[in-house]
């Protein structure tokens, strides 16, 4: 019984809920000591929070919102820059296309003019070669004509001399003369050829 009682009183002390009415049993009348303790407790917390901790978090929150706003501002700026760059690229691309088209056109014109030029030159060449050939043929013909003319004269004279110098009584003789003449003529032609 004694042990139980002391156990129970120990438990009562730990849980600490005395049922004995205190001098002030009206729950609506504040206890002065508790007023003091409550105020002190509150001011300790108020000091720690208001003077030390809350300014820090207020600063952090402000910095964060600044950072977020700054981030948005930066993003806007980047977007504007990207837009500008895109415009530039587009402009450059259009210019490049234009330039390419111009170059193609130029090349086509140049090609056409080159072809025309070449054709003209080729025609001129052909004409020139033809003219040269005609000229050389003409010259050779003139030369051959002149040579022939002079040789025919000589031959005729020589033939006439032979005919006059020899007695042409019979056909056999006459034929011999002609044959000899022709042989000489041939050999003479050969000689003339060799001389040339």
């Amino acid at each position: 019984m004694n042990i139980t009682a002391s156990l129970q009183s120990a438990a009562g002390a730990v849980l600490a809920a005395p049922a004995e009415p205190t001098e002030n049993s009206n729950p609506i009348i504040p206890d002065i000591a508790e007023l003091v303790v409550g105020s002190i407790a509150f001011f300790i917390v108020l000091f720690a929070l208001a003077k030390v901790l809350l300014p820090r978090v207020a600063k952090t929150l402000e910095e964060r919102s600044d950072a977020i706003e700054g981030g948005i501002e930066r993003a806007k700026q980047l977007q504007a820059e990207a837009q500008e760059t895109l415009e530039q690229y587009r402009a450059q691309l259009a210019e490049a296309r234009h330039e390419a088209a111009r170059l193609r056109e130029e090349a086509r014109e140049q090609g056409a003019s080159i072809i025309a030029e070449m054709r003209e030159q080729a025609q001129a060449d052909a004409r020139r070669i033809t003219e040269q050939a005609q000229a050389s043929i003409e010259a050779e013909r003139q030369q051959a004509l002149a040579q022939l003319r002079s040789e025919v004269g000589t031959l005729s004279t020589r033939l006439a001399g032979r005919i006059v110098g020899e007695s042409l009584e019979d056909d056999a003789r006459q034929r011999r003369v002609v044959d000899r003449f022709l042989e000489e003529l041939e050999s003479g032609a050969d000689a003339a050829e060799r001389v040339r």
Partner: protein
Amino acid sequence: MSSLSGNAGTLLAAEEWHAPGLWLFQWKPLVEIGPFGITKPMILAFIVVLVVIGFFWAAFSKPQPVPKGAQMWGEYAYTFVRDQIARPMIGKDGDKYLPLLFTLFVFVWIMNLMSVIPLAQFPVTSRIAYPAALAIMVYLYMLYLGFKHQGFLGFFKNKLFPPGMPKWIYIILAPLEFLTNFIVNPFTHAVRLFGNMFAGHILIAMFAITGYHFLVVAVSPLGLPLGIVGAVMTVVMVAFELLIQALQAYVFAMLAANYIGGAVHAEH
């Protein structure tokens, strides 16, 4: 047996159901220093001080740009008080009074929360002195701010003679306004919180004692359903009290903000 005076002793030993009463709230000093006795609510109040400072030290001593853990929760509470209490009640300059309001909210809430913490199991604010100390402090601060921003006479004039009324009505209105603003408000400010916590604690204690009595002390076929109801209702009431504790802390801080706002800006 009769020499026992603790309610735990009563609970452990009583053979008959013992309704909870005022004795729930009356604490014998654990330690006495001269005339000054340290009671359990006082110790709890200082535990609350340590818990609050400890938590917010962990949360806000080195705040990171990207919050996590304690800082995240702390910031959540901070922005809640800022956006739901300080700014709506006071206005643009509400942030100036935010540290006070935030401290009030957190301090009151954790004192209330002691009601459901094992071993503590007592809402500190169910002792009228704790809410009263805070209400008196808010009241004095309100007077200070009122005199500072509106002048001594101006503050009373603005409070007692709200503009836009027929002249004769002030004969009735002024005393009523005085009563409301300078006597009833501070009183109800403290008593509202006290009453809620006091009643909540009695309710929890009653269901707990009922459950304990009929399920442990005096088990009987007849008492068993009662005991089960008591046990279940204890859990339900604890959940309900968790809500009430936060709500009352919010209401206490909001009223404080309201009084401060009325002192800083003359009512329109």
